[in-house]
């Protein structure tokens, strides 16, 4: 995901305010890079992964996405590193490593 800048109030003069402060741009908060919050990162072992998609459904941030080969991978732009995916993976295919590790 290319990094656009998240809109903030500082971008607006009073004249730019919509009537009633209504936001008409659907879902525009999705520019926020919550991946910056992370202290741990999930790593997928494709050998062990059974493509069950449980990690996908249990992610509170919708940060796990299906990939072309049918695996489910964390979108590091959004992943906050909570570790839920690693904790619930029935195949033990996901491990959390420290964010500083490469």
């Amino acid at each position: 995901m290319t990094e656009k800048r998240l809109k903030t109030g500082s971008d607006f003069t009073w004249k730019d305010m919509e009537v009633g402060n209504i936001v008409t741009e659907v879902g525009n908060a999705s520019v926020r890079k919550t991946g910056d919050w992370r202290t741990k990162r999930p790593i997928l072992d494709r050998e062990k992964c059974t493509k069950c998609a449980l990690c996908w459904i249990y992610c509170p941030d919708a940060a796990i996405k299906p990939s072309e080969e049918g695996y489910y991978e964390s979108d590091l732009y959004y992943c906050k590193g909570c570790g839920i995916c690693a904790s619930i993976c029935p195949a033990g295919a996901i491990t959390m490593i420290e964010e500083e590790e490469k």
Partner: protein
Amino acid sequence: MPCRSYNYDRGGRKMSKRVGLEASHAAAEAARMADVDVIAAYPITPQTHIPERLAEMVANGELNAAYIPVESEHSALSACLGAAAVGARTFTATAGQGLELMHEVVYVASSMRYPIVMTICNRALSAPLSVWGDHSDAMAVRDTGWIQVFCQNNQEAFDMTLWAFRVGEDSRVLFPVMVHFDGFHLSHVTEPVILPEQKEVDRFLPRFQYPFALNPDKPMTHGAFGPPDIYAEAKVAQEVAFRKSKGVIIQGFKEFGDIFGRYYHPVEPYKTEGARTLLLTMGSFSETAKIAIDTKKNKGESVGLINLRLWRPFPFEELRQAVKDAETLIVFDRCISFGGPGGPVSSEIRSALYNEKERPRGVSFVGGLGGRDMSVKDFEYVIDRGREIVEKGSEELFETVGIRGKVTGIRG
């Protein structure tokens, strides 16, 4: 019960007709003729005849509207927010404590720009509990950002309610409107009211087209919260838009007059040409005060009356114009602003005139609290005593009228 003997022409159509109606029933009739979509109201004296009459209309099929018998005033106005947000023409009514209970919602309605119309049967605020009329409920919502007008009589209760939909819903405005009329003195008193024909109403009031209606076809977010880096801009934008609405307010008055024959103005002078002493009143007492003016004028006194109709946005220009030649301006309030500058209206009038190079001497009177009546003689007294204070000064910050026992101790 209202007198319901309408005339019918040969084709069986109802004709514009003069009937006896309480202001409550007149307001309900205006909402009916406006083809309101949603009514969410909670009963409170002296407003009860409004939701009762509307419920009766819906039950009899005279009005096709969703009637929501909510469980409190806070929920009443909250339901109205929801209804307006999906584009429904929305109406409610309340008084006194009810208006106070919905206080936080009142601010939200205006800042979210939902054009709800609400009639208030002005009632005194507790404590002690009083179901009777004064303006303390209205004064408590001065700063809430609603367009607000006051009515002198039941005809105006009907007219202003109809006008309110036209102005509030205008795409250049989109602000809610409060129509104030006095509890009991108007809400429960039958007066002759001219009801227009439906086709005239339809010509005056276009269909409501809310540009931001919540709909899955065009998802929007209403009511996002305001972090410090944007809240101030939002409020300033609201204020500027609110002041701009005056243009449509005036246009609405004119259009109303052109179609129905009755012209209203933000500030309505009564026999003020050349008058040295002016009395300013709001609401039903204006009519009583006018008789006092006539009585005094017949005795050769130089007096006149100003009826203040448009309360918010405050008509600074019209007020300054109306009082520019007077020496004395007596402002009559039906509310005390405790420990403050006397009557709230008086303090606003003074503030409006403060920077004028020439302005009349001001006197503040408070009376008519909690249903206490003001007679013609009482208003004559107000004018006399007002002139006396201007001449001789007074130790009190403001005067009271109609209170048993001499009032002292109103000091700064």
